[in-house]
């Protein structure tokens, strides 16, 4: 029997992985909108818990929106590798003759496409409810789109580390939320700057720099974390 030479075919593998994950998520249409609805619900809870006073709400709106988006992203991360782990396909992913960082990066990409991006698009809508000034909507959406990509990448490290654990969900928050803080600060800062009429460009540039760094380092960390989890 012929020995198989390792093919490259990375593009095929990446494209198929993206397609597979997209199909899986879209097949249960309800699940794609879950983070969105969670986002909306949390934003609705705050006026109820705090006060319906619009001036107060407008003041805290950038922070609220960003924290709620962050929590929504992070909640949806828990299942990023979990179901693959449970049915054994994660094992098979690790045994594929392809660079693991590239494969996990495509999984994270799908996660961002179906979570971070829709959140960014929807945020201005909720901004209206919190009486956020209209000038800041573009910055709000842009900062969320940029920031949530970093959130997905960093969160995936935590998800990979906890994938084999029985009650990973809350542990994941503990691992990941501290690492989210810079993104939260710059993201909310960008919106606040826009509200005050200042330029949001420096904040957005910083968000971009963070994203670039996450893109460079996170795939390797995720791959290493997955190998550890599978070994356990």
């Amino acid at each position, binding site marked *: 029997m012929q020995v198989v030479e390792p093919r490259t075919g990375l593009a095929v593998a990446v494209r198929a992985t993206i397609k597979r994950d997209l199909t899986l998520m879209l097949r249960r249409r309800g699940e794609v909108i879950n983070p969105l609805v969670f986002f909306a619900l949390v934003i609705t809870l705050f006026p109820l818990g705090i006060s319906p006073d619009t001036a107060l709400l407008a003041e805290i709106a950038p922070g609220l929106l960003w924290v709620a988006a962050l929590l929504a992203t992070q909640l949806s991360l828990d299942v990023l590798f979990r179901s693959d782990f449970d049915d054994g396909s994660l094992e098979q992913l690790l045994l594929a003759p392809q660079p693991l960082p590239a494969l996990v990066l495509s999984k994270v990409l799908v996660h961002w496409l179906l979570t971070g991006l829709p959140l960014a698009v929807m945020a201005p809508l909720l901004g209206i409810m919190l009486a956020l000034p209209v000038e800041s909507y573009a910055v709000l959406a842009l900062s969320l789109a940029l920031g949530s990509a970093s959130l997905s990448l960093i969160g995936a490290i935590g998800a990979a580390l906890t994938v084999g654990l029985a009650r990973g969900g809350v542990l994941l928050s503990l*691992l990941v939320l*501290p*690492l989210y*803080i810079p993104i939260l600060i*710059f993201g909310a*800062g960008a919106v*606040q700057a826009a509200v005050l009429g200042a330029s949001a460009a420096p904040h957005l540039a910083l968000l971009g720099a963070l994203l670039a760094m996450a893109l460079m380092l996170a795939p390797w960390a995720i791959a290493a974390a997955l190998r*550890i*989890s599978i070994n356990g």
Partner: protein
Amino acid sequence: MWAFIHKLGSPKWFYAISARLTPWFWAAAAVLLVVGSVWGLAFAPSDYQQGNSFRIIYVHVPAAILAQSCFAALAVAGGIYLIWKIKLADMAAAVIAPFGAAMTFVALFSGAVWGVPTWGTWWVWDARLTSMLIQLFLYFGVIALRGAFASRDSGAKAASVLALVGVVNIPIIKYSVEWWNTLHQPATFTLTERPAMPADMWLPLLVMVLGFYCFFIALTLTRTRSEILRRESAKRWVRDLADGHAGGRR
């Protein structure tokens, strides 16, 4: 060089060499801490602004510095363990993490308590305070992650990865938090600017810092030795060692 690293990584060799070092560090820690405490509590002059509440500095600053060093040590140990697979590094990391968390807590607690007489409040969202709090959470994460794995090796590796990721992030967190605080409201409280402390104020502080470091080293050595006994309990030399120990019967 390589031979040396691997020799250092051998638990047996380390156990033997550390047996000689540990007592000295304990002794130095005891002397320095006692001298520093008496000096700081009773002899250092009181601050002209803060009065005697200033004496909290002698536990606050050493604990804060040590807490940060511990995280760096944790990351270094994690890196060594992941790259060279030296188990000893992980044993040290397992021991350092809880102590680092404890020191972070001491720094937070003493700082919070100090805040009442000086700032009139237990807590403000100052940059330094906030990043210290986040560091405490990072410590919790490392400890919880290690404990969550059934297999010790997997827990060790996972904790190492997290420590490395965390140490990349700490400077970013620090920087962003500082930026954030000045951004929102420029003039909040700053930690008391150093009013060119007189020597008899900062000398005891130096003694205390050194004492805390010696304590840290002594404790880490001692507990790493215990960890070696625990993990290598099946090895011949550990068995023999237990027999030779005081109280053992032949």
